[in-house]
């Protein structure tokens, strides 16, 4: 380069014409080659290993039993997320209220449901009838309006929804609280000077802004929830995983059916990620997103910009 500068301008290549070429370190080549080799070996294993039985994978991938399980997994994910988020919003507002009773109750709830593993909760809720045999709604110390035995209320599905939604509510509450706290006090003050009440300010000004901050973590939680739902197989609830397990307990095709489940979990989490990025993008600048952008954002890994030099 230094020579270039000394030589007459006519001898120097026109730097405005040339495109900077990325500078690659030897490790870029060596590391890349080694990794590529591993990838090839891995793919070869996937293709040639007899025990994988791709024919059986293909046979069961769209079987009615698996698809029904898939539907239950999706339903469980969304019902648990929606209930969890709804409780989370209430908990977050309680946590930020000036009333110490609300604050403490919310704190205790979050402390409990964040601390107890979801698997323990699932089993606990499923066996709730052992603790409380009947539930009734009525005037306290007065007439009973409605009652039912706990055994008829707690099905594997309702136990699963309870366990998953309550765990989610604790995490959602903390996320939403942080989102609300991130909103500048100037926003609430501006709303107050316009004569808005506290609930109008919360609904119209604070929550919409907080929600936007909270969208990415909610997306992450939804994907985690999708995977957490596989815990419900302990309740013999035929979700995606348990459906696969039921099939391989009959056919002994354990690995191929686990692969079927894996494929579906990957497909669903990919779709959820795409939806999340789409929403996030829409919130950021309001305009619709091109597919290519969503796809590239799926693998949003950013390396530092490569160093460049002017090539001759």
């Amino acid at each position: 380069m230094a020579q270039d500068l000394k030589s007459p301008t006519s001898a120097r290549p026109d730097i405005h014409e040339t495109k900077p070429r990325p500078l690659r370190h030897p490790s870029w080549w060596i590391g890349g080659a080694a990794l590529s080799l591993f990838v090839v070996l891995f793919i070869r294993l996937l293709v040639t290993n007899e025990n994988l039985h791709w024919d059986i994978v293909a046979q069961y991938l769209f079987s009615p039993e698996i698809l029904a399980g898939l539907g239950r997994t999706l339903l469980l994910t969304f019902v648990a997320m929606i209930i969890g988020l709804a409780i989370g919003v209430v908990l977050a507002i309680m946590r930020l209220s000036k009333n110490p009773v609300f604050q403490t109750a919310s704190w205790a709830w979050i402390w409990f449901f964040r601390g107890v593993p979801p698997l323990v909760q699932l089993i606990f809720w499923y066996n709730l009838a052992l603790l409380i045999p009947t539930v009734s709604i009525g005037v306290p110390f007065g007439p009973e309006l409605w009652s039912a035995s706990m055994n008829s209320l707690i099905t594997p599905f309702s136990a699963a929804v309870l366990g998953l939604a309550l765990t989610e509510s604790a995490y959602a509450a903390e996320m939403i609280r942080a989102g609300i706290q991130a909103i500048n006090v100037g926003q609430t003050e501006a709303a107050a000077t316009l004569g808005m009440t506290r609930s109008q300010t919360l609904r119209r000004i604070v929550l919409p802004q907080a929600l936007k901050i909270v969208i990415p973590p909610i997306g992450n939680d939804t994907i985690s929830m999708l995977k957490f739902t596989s815990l419900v197989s302990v309740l013999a609830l035929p979700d995606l995983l348990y459906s696969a397990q039921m099939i391989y307990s009959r056919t002994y095709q354990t690995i191929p059916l686990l692969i079927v489940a894996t494929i579906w979990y990957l497909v669903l989490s990919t779709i959820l990620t795409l939806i999340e990025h789409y929403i996030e993008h829409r919130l950021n600048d309001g305009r619709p997103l091109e597919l290519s952008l969503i796809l590239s954002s799926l693998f949003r890994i950013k390396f530092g910009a490569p160093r460049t030099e002017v090539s001759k």
Partner: protein
Amino acid sequence: MSTTMPLLNVERLSKSFGTHQVLNKIDMSVKLGDVTCIVGPSGSGKSTLLRCLNYLEVPDSGVVFLDGDPVGMRWHGNTLRQMSFNELAAQRQRMGMVFQSFNLFPHKTALENIVEAPIIVQRRKKSEAVAEGMALLDKVGLRERAHYYPRQLSGGQQQRVAIARSLAMKPAVMLFDEPTSALDPELVGEVLAVMRQLAEDGMTMVVVTHEMSFARDVADHLIFMDGGVIVEAGPPKDVLSNPQHTRTKAFLARLL
């Protein structure tokens, strides 16, 4: 309302933060249609006074009367009790406020910022609120920016939208807390021009400002504050050209 009774009346207003007394028995009054400018060194309590006027800051003692009604409080026999937040919200509709940092709602366009409170708080018809909102945008010279988001607007434009947003509630008085202090020098003029126009239209205004030329030209009444008290007050020409107190003289000398 009789012309002799002031629109705003402040009686022995005091406020401390911890042990620091920020306002010390302030008395002042603002007549209908008057522009009052408050000047003074940093930390003298100007913002705190303004925020006590609409109860954003709760005074330790003293009362602000708006058109005869105590702000943030209501009579209980012969004593005053704090009112509920919803009652206070209703009262605040009569006092607009413009902040140094604009505080526009970032998730709403300029027009949406303006029509939000009329629709949500005053339950006005949407078409009506939008028509009035557009008229207000016209007034502040931003009709063609109606559908821009705050981040797509310059500071001066944002502050003009903020003024229009307050005006949309048809307040009896407008409070301004250093409305041009966050702006680049070349954007100050457009905001002051809107405020001058507002004063000419007869709006009652209380303006905390460092813009001495605005205070001299527009104010009917100038208040100089220092250390939580009103040191000197009167017509701006008198206070600015013939200050009586050494503290006023020192403050003005530093500005020139």
